[in-house]
C-alpha cells in the first residue's frame, strides 16, 4: 500500500484505484518497427508522426477507473516545432560564420530562453493530454521554471547531491501546483523530511561506491604505471588513448554510480511527491514503487536493449510502463463516477487550435 499516508480524512467511502497498462510488447513492437522504418525512409520527417503514434499508444493504454488517457498532439504540430528549432540552429550557424561574436552569445541566449522553453513544453504536454474528454493544463511561469528546475539542478549539483531533496521539493511543487485537470487544481507539498528519507540510500550508494572504486582505481593506476614503465609496446597516440581512456573509465564508473543511485532516488522521490499530491484538495494520488525493483527493471532494460541492438526496446518500454502504472493510483473521496462526471474543461486548454512548441520532454 501507499508508503506516505496523510492523516486519514473523514472516510465517507473512499475508493482506492490503481492504474494499469493494457498494451503488450508484441503489439508495440509492430508500431515501433514501422515508426523506425518510416523515419529512415522519409529522412527523419516521419519522426514527428511516429512520436504521436508512440505517445497515443502509451497514453491510450494507461487506464485508471476503466478509462484511458488520450494524447492529442498532431504530427504537424510537432513537426513544425522541430522545424523551428532546426531553422533557429541554421540561422545561428550562419550568423556565427558572418559575425563570430554571436557564437559567444549563443550559450547565454539559450540559457535565458531555457526556462521559457521548459514552461512552454510542460504546458504543451499537459494540454495535449486528456482523460474522460477533459484536458489537462499547466499554468506555471517561466520564472517558476527557472527557480524550480534550473536553480534546483544547480543547487543539487554544486552541493554534490546533498541538497538534492531541496531541489526535488521545488521541482515537484512547481509541477504539481501548476497542473490543472479541467477546472480542478492539483497540489503537492512533499515534506523535506520524507525526501531526505529516500535520499539516504542513494547517498550511501554513491559514498560507499566511491570508496570501493577509488581503492580499485588506486591499485590499477599504480599497477599500470609500473607496467607502462616496464614494457609498453604502445605508440604515442595509443598511450594517449589509453591514458585518457583511463581518465574516462574513471568518469564512466562515477557516471554509473550516480546513474544507479539516481534510479533509486528518482523512484523514492516520485513516491513521496505523488503520495503528497492531491486533486482538487480531496483526492489523494498514491505511488508505491519498490525502489529496488524499479532500479532492477531499468538496469536490465538497458542491458537487454543494448544486447539485442535495440530490438527488445519495445519490450523494455512496455515492461517499465506496466510496472510504474501498476504502482500508481488514486484514492477518491466519494463516488468516483459522480465526482469525475462533474469535472468540466476550462479556459485556454479547451481550444485545440493553438500552436505550441514541442520542446523537451519531462515525463509528467
Amino acid at each position, binding site marked *: 500500500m501507499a508508503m506516505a499516508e496523510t492523516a486519514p480524512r473523514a472516510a465517507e467511502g473512499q475508493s482506492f484505484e490503481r492504474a494499469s497498462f493494457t498494451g503488450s510488447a508484441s503489439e508495440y513492437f*509492430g508500431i515501433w518497427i514501422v515508426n523506425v522504418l518510416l523515419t529512415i525512409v522519409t529522412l527523419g520527417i516521419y519522426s514527428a508522426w511516429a512520436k504521436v503514434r508512440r505517445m*497515443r499508444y502509451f497514453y491510450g493504454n494507461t487506464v485508471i477507473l476503466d478509462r484511458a488517457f488520450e494524447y492529442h498532439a498532431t504530427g504537424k504540430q510537432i513537426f513544425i516545432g522541430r522545424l523551428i528549432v532546426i531553422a533557429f540552429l541554421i540561422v545561428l550557424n550562419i550568423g556565427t560564420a558572418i559575425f563570430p561574436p554571436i557564437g559567444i552569445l549563443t550559450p547565454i541566449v539559450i540559457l535565458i530562453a531555457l526556462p521559457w522553453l521548459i514552461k512552454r513544453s510542460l504546458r504543451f504536454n499537459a494540454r495535449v493530454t486528456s482523460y474522460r474528454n477533459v484536458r489537462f493544463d499547466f499554468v506555471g511561469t517561466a520564472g517558476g521554471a527557472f527557480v524550480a528546475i534550473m536553480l534546483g539542478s544547480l543547487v543539487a549539483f554544486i552541493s554534490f547531491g546533498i541538497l538534492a531533496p531541496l531541489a526535488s521539493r521545488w521541482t515537484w511543487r512547481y509541477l504539481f501546483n501548476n497542473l490543472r485537470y479541467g477546472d480542478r487544481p492539483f497540489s503537492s507539498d512533499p515534506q523535506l523530511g520524507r525526501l531526505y528519507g529516500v535520499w539516504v540510500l542513494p547517498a550511501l550508494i554513491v559514498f560507499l561506491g566511491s570508496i570501493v572504486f577509488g581503492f580499485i582505481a588506486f591499485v590499477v593506476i599504480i599497477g599500470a604505471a609500473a607496467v607502462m614503465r616496464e614494457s609498453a*609496446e604502445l605508440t*604515442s*597516440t595509443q598511450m594517449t588513448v589509453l591514458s585518457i581512456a583511463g581518465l574516462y573509465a574513471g568518469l564512466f564508473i562515477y557516471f554509473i554510480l550516480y546513474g544507479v543511485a539516481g534510479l533509486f532516488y528518482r523512484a523514492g522521490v516520485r513516491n513521496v511527491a505523488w503520495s503528497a499530491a492531491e486533486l482538487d484538495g480531496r483526492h489523494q494520488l498514491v505511488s508505491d514503487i519498490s525502489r529496488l525493483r524499479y532500479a532492477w527493471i531499468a538496469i536490465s532494460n538497458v542491458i537487454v*536493449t543494448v544486447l539485442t541492438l*535495440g530490438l527488445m526496446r519495445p519490450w523494455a518500454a512496455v515492461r517499465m510502463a506496466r510496472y510504474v502504472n501498476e504502482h500508481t493510483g488514486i484514492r477518491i473521496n466519494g463516488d468516483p463516477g459522480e465526482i469525475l*462526471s462533474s469535472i*468540466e474543461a476550462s479556459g485556454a486548454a479547451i481550444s485545440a487550435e493553438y500552436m505550441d512548441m514541442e520542446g523537451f520532454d519531462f515525463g509528467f
Partner: protein
Amino acid sequence: MASDGAVIAKGEWHPANSSRAIPAVLRDDGILLVAAEEERVLASAVPERTEISPRVGSIPRRVSFPDGSVFETRDNDGIDTYLRDKRGARSGLIHRLEQFHPRLILMTLAVILLATTIYRFAVPVLVEVAVLVTPPFVPELIGSGTLASLDRAILKPSELPEGERQAISEGFSKLAVHSKGGQKAYQLYFRDGGVIGPNAFALPNGNLILTDDLVKLANGDREMVLGVLGHEIAHVEGEHSLRQLYRAAGVAALVMLIAGDVGSGVEDILTQGGALVALSYSRAAEAEADRRSVELMRAAGYDPAALSRFFAVLEDKLGDHEDASILSSHPGTPQRQQDIRNYAAELEGRPRAR
C-alpha cells in the same frame, strides 16, 4: 435496437468539454453518423464533418462531432469495418503494417540494412558538414577544457632543462610555419606526464602537449621529437579529434532520432560511449598524420623520416610490438616505420614541397 441504420459500435458519449459519460451507440443511418442513447439522438453529423482518430494498437477510438461532443469506443474492429466500407482499403494502412505478422521480420531486416547503410555512408558526410559549420570557439572550448582537467588530474610541470625546451620550441616553430594556419595556430606545452609516460598529444584548438619522458626517450635525438610533433600538428590540421567527436555524436543523434524513444539509460550510454570512441583516432587518420609529419619535417629542412626512428626506439626499448590496446586501430609499428620511410623516399623524387 429499434432504430433505423446499422450500429457501428457500442461505447460512450461525452458532451463537449465535459467528463460526463453516457452509454451510447454509434449508428450509420445512410446520410448521417449518429451517436444515440437508446432512442435519443445525442449528436449527429454528416461523416465528412466528423473526425475519427486513427487506429493505434487497440487503444480506444474517438469520433468527434462538430458540436465538440465525442463518442468513444473500444470496438476498434467495428469502426474499421465502417471505415473500410466508406473509404475503401486506403484507411488504416499504417496500422495494418504495424500488426504482429511475419512481415515484421522483413521490416526488421530492412531496418538493420538501412541503419548499416546510414552508418557507413551518411554519417561520414554529415561529419564533414558539421566540421565545416563548426564555429571556432568549439574546438577552443574543448581544447582548453581538456588541458585544464588533465593539468588537474595527471600532468605536472615539466622538469626539463630550460635550454632543451628552448631548442625544441624553436624547432617546433619551424615546423608550424609550414603547416596550415601557420605558427600562431599552435602552442606547445611541456609537462611531466606522470602515468602517461612518453607521449605527445594534440588538442583540437592547436594546443600540443609533450611529456618529459618522450624527450628523455629520444635521448638527445631532437629530430625524432620534432617528427612526433609534426605528427601531432597533422592531427590538428586534419581536425581529427573534432571529426571523431562528431562521428560519435552523430551516431548517437541518429539512433535517438530513428528509434524515437530509446530509454534514458541507453541514451546515456550512447553519449558517454561516444566520448570514448571519439578519443581513438582512426587508422586512416594515423596514416595521414604520419605522412604529413614527413612533409613538414622535409619542408623545415629536417630528416623527413625522423618519426620512423621514434617507432623504432619504442620497439627496442619497450619490448615487443603486439597491438595490446583494444581502443586503438593503429597499424603495427614495423609497418608504420616502413610506410614512413617509403613516403620520405617517394618525396625525394619530387620537387621540395612548399
